[in-house]
């Protein structure tokens, strides 16, 4: 099944990539409102000699770690911490690197009543507004809105065996097939693999993993990701700050498939956008 490697418990987590790729990492905690959510880690550090902001979901590996990090399922506090850190990066002109690895936002009562929906929405809007370069990488499981909240980026990279989907195969099967046992069929139908997402335009680049998956050789996986990040960052440095924000908006505007005989592909609308019929 497609999600097995993405969910492998030995798979490198955000902290592993920080360990291999970021020098002198200084973790910054807390949402400045009420709590610190260990399901999202963030902080400053040096990426190839350049100061950057890193924000990512943290799943943990042992059962104890997983419990502490709530299996990477963030609460509103986590998303608010991310928002605060994005603002910090914007103020000081630091590029933003995010790592996505979550089954989804935490569906608990306290999370809901603490404003989970708005927290996710606000995080996306905050990312959309950034003028600094933003690169997101799907490193393991990219689960729904909880994942996307950290992936409104100029470029989205994805590890070869990671998955990224609107809903878990189990959840999709339970709703559409009315039976979670149809998860394998749902996983197939949702097309959540890196190569399928590249085809749909949802990601820009696939980062190859060591044979058998990133967990067989985390250092190699991290090194390859480092190369891809450096290359992408150099590309984004060529774009003027306000232009980056506009182009990021355009990137998401183009995502989707529809037809419109009144507005053929490539024609410019009166209001500054381009028709993007992709058929």
């Amino acid at each position, binding site marked *: 099944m497609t999600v097995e490697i993405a969910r492998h418990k030995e798979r490198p987590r955000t902290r592993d990539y920080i360990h291999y790729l970021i020098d002198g990492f200084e973790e910054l905690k807390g949402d400045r409102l009420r709590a610190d959510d260990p399901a999202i880690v963030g902080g400053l550090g040096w990426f190839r000699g350049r100061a950057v902001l890193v924000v990512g979901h943290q799943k943990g590996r042992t059962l104890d770690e997983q419990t502490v990090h709530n299996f990477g399922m963030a609460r509103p506090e986590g998303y608010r911490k991310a928002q605060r850190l994005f603002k910090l990066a914007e103020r000081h002109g630091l590029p933003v690197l995010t790592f996505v690895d979550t089954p989804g*936002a935490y*569906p*608990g*009562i306290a999370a*809901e*009543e603490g*404003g*989970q*929906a*708005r927290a*996710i*929405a*606000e995080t*996306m*809007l905050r990312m*959309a*507004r950034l003028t600094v370069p933003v690169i997101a990488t799907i490193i393991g499981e990219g689960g*729904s*809105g909880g994942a*996307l909240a950290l992936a*409104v980026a100029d470029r989205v990279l994805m590890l070869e065996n990671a998955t990224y*989907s*609107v*809903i878990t195969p189990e*959840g*999709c099967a339970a*709703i*559409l*097939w*009315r039976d979670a046992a*149809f998860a394998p*069929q749902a996983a197939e*139908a*949702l*097309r*959540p693999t890196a190569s399928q997402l590249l085809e*749909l335009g*949802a990601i820009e680049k696939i980062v190859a993993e060591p044979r058998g998956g990133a967990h067989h050789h985390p250092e190699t996986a991290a090194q390859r990701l480092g190369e891809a990040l450096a290359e992408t960052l150099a590309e984004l440095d060529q774009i003027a700050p306000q232009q980056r*924000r506009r182009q*990021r*908006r355009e990137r*998401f*505007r183009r*995502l*989707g*498939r*529809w*037809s*419109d*005989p*009144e*507005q053929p592909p490539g*024609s*410019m*609308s*009166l*209001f*500054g*956008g381009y028709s993007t019929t992709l*058929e």
Partner: protein
Amino acid sequence: MNVTLEIERRDNGPAKPEWACPSCHEGARNREVRDNLMVCPHCSHHLRIGARERIRQLTDEGTFRELWTMVATLDPLDFTDIESYPERLRAAKAKTGLSEAIVTGAASIDGTPCVLAVMDFGFMGGSMGSVVGEKLWRSAELAAGEDLPLVAVCSSGGARMQEGILSLMQMAKTSCAVDLINEATSPFVAVLVDPCTGGVVASFATLADVCIAEPGALLSFSGPRVIAETTREALPEGFGSAERNLNLGHLDAVVARKDLRERVGNYLRLLGGGEEPDRGEGSEAPAGRTGRLAQATLERARTLAAHARRSLVGGDRQDPGAAEEPPAREPAP
């Protein structure tokens, strides 16, 4: 149904009511419920209504001009579960008479011209796919470009799973649309109606300048069933209701359906730097106002629709007939 009871009723009891409230079970005549804006005359339970009925209730009579009717849904993933996606779409179209889960256009609300986007829960659970995202984007773009407010009536079960990752991307796309409208400082008012959950409530719906809901509407990111199954926590009384959300600080107000037009109109005037309306004695109710303001609004909405149509046919090519052309008539709800 108890057969004896049924016979008894037919023979002696009062006639079986035409309509029974799903909440308080009191009966009423269909007409009575319709005249009450599809709200129970006894307990004020707000029934779900479709996009056409919503537009009829919310906008000033005859001012709505639908836009982007030709934007059509595709099946990018060739998705099939128990039924294929095109089959499900066909059924939804037949059931609602709509082409998608959103209807967009220009209108005037209580005398203020605006861009209006109305979702319809009846169309595949109001799920947000590429077309919903694109029409919302165009609405925001039109509002930003024309310095008009945007009003969105949101009702949705979440993302359109049949479009896979592309449906998830609509959350980001519509959030980017809010960035566009914020940058242009056009006011944005969202009305959340039952039910409003999943990707819609976690994107543009809760990013509005003013965010209100109808009484009793269910508003949550994860549905109550998912929460109960995943966390095994007991749900508190009234979980996810508009009223509870208001107390938790997630809404600006809970507004009864009969007050929506006036309240939304007021937000638009307050945020848009408009003038305080004359509500002195003897002035007509907002719905029937035919003063200069309403007239100007109507003109504006007409020009706007013509303008948008022209831009869709071919860039800024002039079409001399477009402004005079009679506006497309809103089909009866």
